């Protein structure tokens, strides 16, 4: 087994990242703009914000950008991690973690953020 690749340049420069919103795949950016382990924010036409991440295996994930604990639109600026096979982002404000696949908060079952399907195309 080799160590997971970390070099963004190894990714295909013409690959688009897309997210599924209201039944349609919306292109977001070129995959080369995503650094594995970090996120970017996307502004939707209706004013909503989405946080998009890529992981060390090159997969992409998308959840709502608003941190429900503080009300600020900052989740795209958190650090990602994994625990027990779950990928998450930790809010840069108060550090609560949100599952990148389901949007659930790992600290508090009753809180979640919207989750979006994401793919590279």
């Amino acid at each position, binding site marked *: 087994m080799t160590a997971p690749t970390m070099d963004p340049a190894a990714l295909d420069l013409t690959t688009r990242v897309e997210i599924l919103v209201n039944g349609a795949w919306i292109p977001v950016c070129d995959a080369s703009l995503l650094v594995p382990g970090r996120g970017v924010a996307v502004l939707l036409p209706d*004013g909503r914000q989405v946080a998009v991440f890529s992981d060390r295996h090159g997969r992409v994930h998308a959840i709502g950008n608003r941190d429900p604990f503080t009300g600020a639109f*900052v989740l795209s600026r958190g650090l990602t991690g994994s625990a027990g096979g779950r990928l998450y982002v*930790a809010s*840069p404000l108060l550090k609560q973690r949100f599952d990148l696949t389901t949007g659930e908060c790992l600290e508090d079952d009753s809180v979640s953020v919207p989750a979006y399907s994401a793919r590279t195309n």
Partner: protein
Amino acid sequence: MTTKPTVLLVGYGMVGHRFLEALAESGATQRLQLTVLAEEPRPAYDRVHLTSYFSGTSAEELLLAEDGFAEKHGIDVRLGDPVTAIDREARTVTTRAGHVLGYDTLVLATGSYPFVPPVEGKDAEGCFVYRTIEDLHAIEAYAQQAKSTGRGVGAVVGGGLLGLEAAGALKGLGLETHVIEFAPRLMPVQVDDGGGAALRRTIEDMGVVVHTGIGTRTITVSDGGTATGMTFTDGSDLAADLVVFSAGVRPRDDLARSSGLPVGERGGIVVDAQCRTEDPAVYAIGECALAVDGRVYGLVAPGYAMAEAVAAQLNQQSGSFTGADLSTKLKLLGVDVASFGDAFGATPGALDVVYSDSRAGVYKKLVVTAEGALLGGILVGDAEAYMSLRPLAGTGTPLPVSPEALVLPAGLGAPVSLGGSALPDDAVVCNCHNVTKGEIRAAVTEHSCASVPEVKKCTRAGTGCGSCVKLLGTLVDEELEASGVVVDKGLCPCFAHTRTELYEIVRVTRIPTHARLLAEHGRPEARDGEGCEVCKPTAASIIASLAPELDASGHILDGEQAALQDSNDHFLANIQRNGSYSVVPRIPGGEITPDKLIVIGEVARDFGLYTKITGGQRIDLFGATVDQLPQIWSRLVDAGFESGHAYGKALRTVKSCVGSTWCRYGVQDSVAMAIQLELRYRGLRSPHKLKSAVSGCARECAEARGKDFGVIATAEGWNLYVGGNGGATPRHADLLAKDLTDDELIRLIDRYLMFYVRTADRLERTSAWLDRMEGGLEHLRQVIVEDSLGICAELEELMAHHVTDYQDEWAATLRDPARLARFTSFVNAPGVPDPSVRFVAERDQIRPDLNVLTAEDEEILAMPALIAGPLLEVRSR
């Protein structure tokens, strides 16, 4: 159907609350109908820590019950309606508001009232007692008034435990403070003459005037009825605006007395060993009770024991209270005072071992038997040994080391401290909740508690005054180790190593990335994962501080580093509550030219930023959006500013006082030294932030002893202090070396900082690191002054690399278009500002618009922004 037996509790103070808690813990609350009748307007609060109200603890924070406690246990609490009469025949009580309530069992927990000696003028305006939150509110308000319209003098009648606490409070309120004690020494009940002398000296050094051996004759009163001063039994007098009586307390036994229950000659409701009064349906607990041993206890621990005894009986178990230990340890005005066991040597044949240094305000006395078993003691000025000694007192076991060794200060003779293993199982470790060492061990071995918080929850030890927590930690660790439990000291779920071990791995293997570190050294189950928000920044910090050795890029936005850093390091700015950022340019030593000051002002004005002087002698500009950061910084960099690293775990500021250049007392140029140090260590990545300060003379205006490394000028050179901390657990820095030349000073700081970077845990400030270090300050001195490990040359070399490799992160970022690309709010709409970052105006500046943060849905963002940062116009020009 049977009705539940009715229990009425009269008085909702500390002991009353413990009684309710004990019933709740045993589940007895479900079988009883509980009603509490309280005189005070709020539920029970921590009277023991009442004085902390003056240091910022709010009345809410002092409350003892968790939110919803009464509702959860079905307890009917009626505040502000005291009981005025008891009819024992009818088994009813009547309250001031006229309510009549029946009871099956009545529990009196009415506490005590402050005794005010019957001197003339005692009721004048300006005379106070010190018992309730309301008393403190009143004292605070009157003191403010006294400072502006009166002389600003306060006097405390009574030099006992409470009196000294009140004096500390008056001093803290900014009054000139006097203490008047009738006995020939302070704290006459707890300490002997020697201890009293040491205490007096220290308290006088703090600027409190102490008068002993005189009584108060009258309070002088103005025509308007306000206190103006006092006269004393020796004929002298004192002008004062405010007088606090703290001459002891008396049990509140009036209710019992008027309902015909027996009370003691000197007060106190007479109870038996079960805390029952003459009437089997009536109990009395806490400070209002005269216990079966003939004493009224004015401390909270015996009151708790009584509360538990009665709660047990109401739960059909046995419970009794026959007497308690009067040991106390307190921190008065910053002086440790402890008195325990047979402190005055009343046991026949008792011998003393005394160490006294009145110059340093230290007095230690141990009372022992001829065989060397400890009976008790008094410790003033240094009560470190209290927790390990008190449990041994009276056990009859001879001390494991000679008592002389225990009273000598560290440094004179071998330093001796008794570990937990010296204690017998029946030794009481937590005095507040009467928990023995045996019970603590059982919590670990039988109830499988694996940490101090769990043991606290299980046994309640450590949840009172907190003075036993340190010993508790030692005992829990010892027990865990003995039972073969391996305590997981790993950094996070991804690494089983500590930060120190990871540092060594990186240093030796020269692995330059987190990904490889995780794949090669992570826990097996985490090797394939992403890492986490703990190990990523930790690895980034270690790699950054070893960058020159690893041939890795030291710039924190490069390569993999970009993905590891905390958000703040990623944007080289500090994120704020609404997602905007603050900008802090470095202002070395706090020195700044008018021109540069003007640039900061212009930048702030042009970008509409909120401006504030920080606690670190520099200026913070708040409210920048991600997109604005490069624009703001290019203006700042052009004007010669560089990053202040307010965002990183790195050197923050080296504060200075003005020093010998201007100040008439200065003996060295503290500003020049502060600037030199700040420029040398700027950008150094470390386990936690680092702060420093340089003072130009012993007056210490730069507060250097509150810093990770502090420098104070002497006529001969510089004194270096290490391990200081402000924040939540302040610690005064310790003197490491004296009268150093400039070069010696810098060499020593180089070694100190690199040794810290190398061996501290993640987020461990130097203060905690030093406290944890085996051998403490002495060990540190050996390593970095005597070079006992032979690593000093290496430490110096690491620092030399840091100094030559330093580059300003913001200047480098601005030069690099690739790095600049990340400063956009939206990847799909570069140039569009973030509509959620909005501001409103306040005091002529901006502040975050909280409506955005509290809005239920995101629709608010569809509305046009009222005020956005760059467009803001708050001032009419």
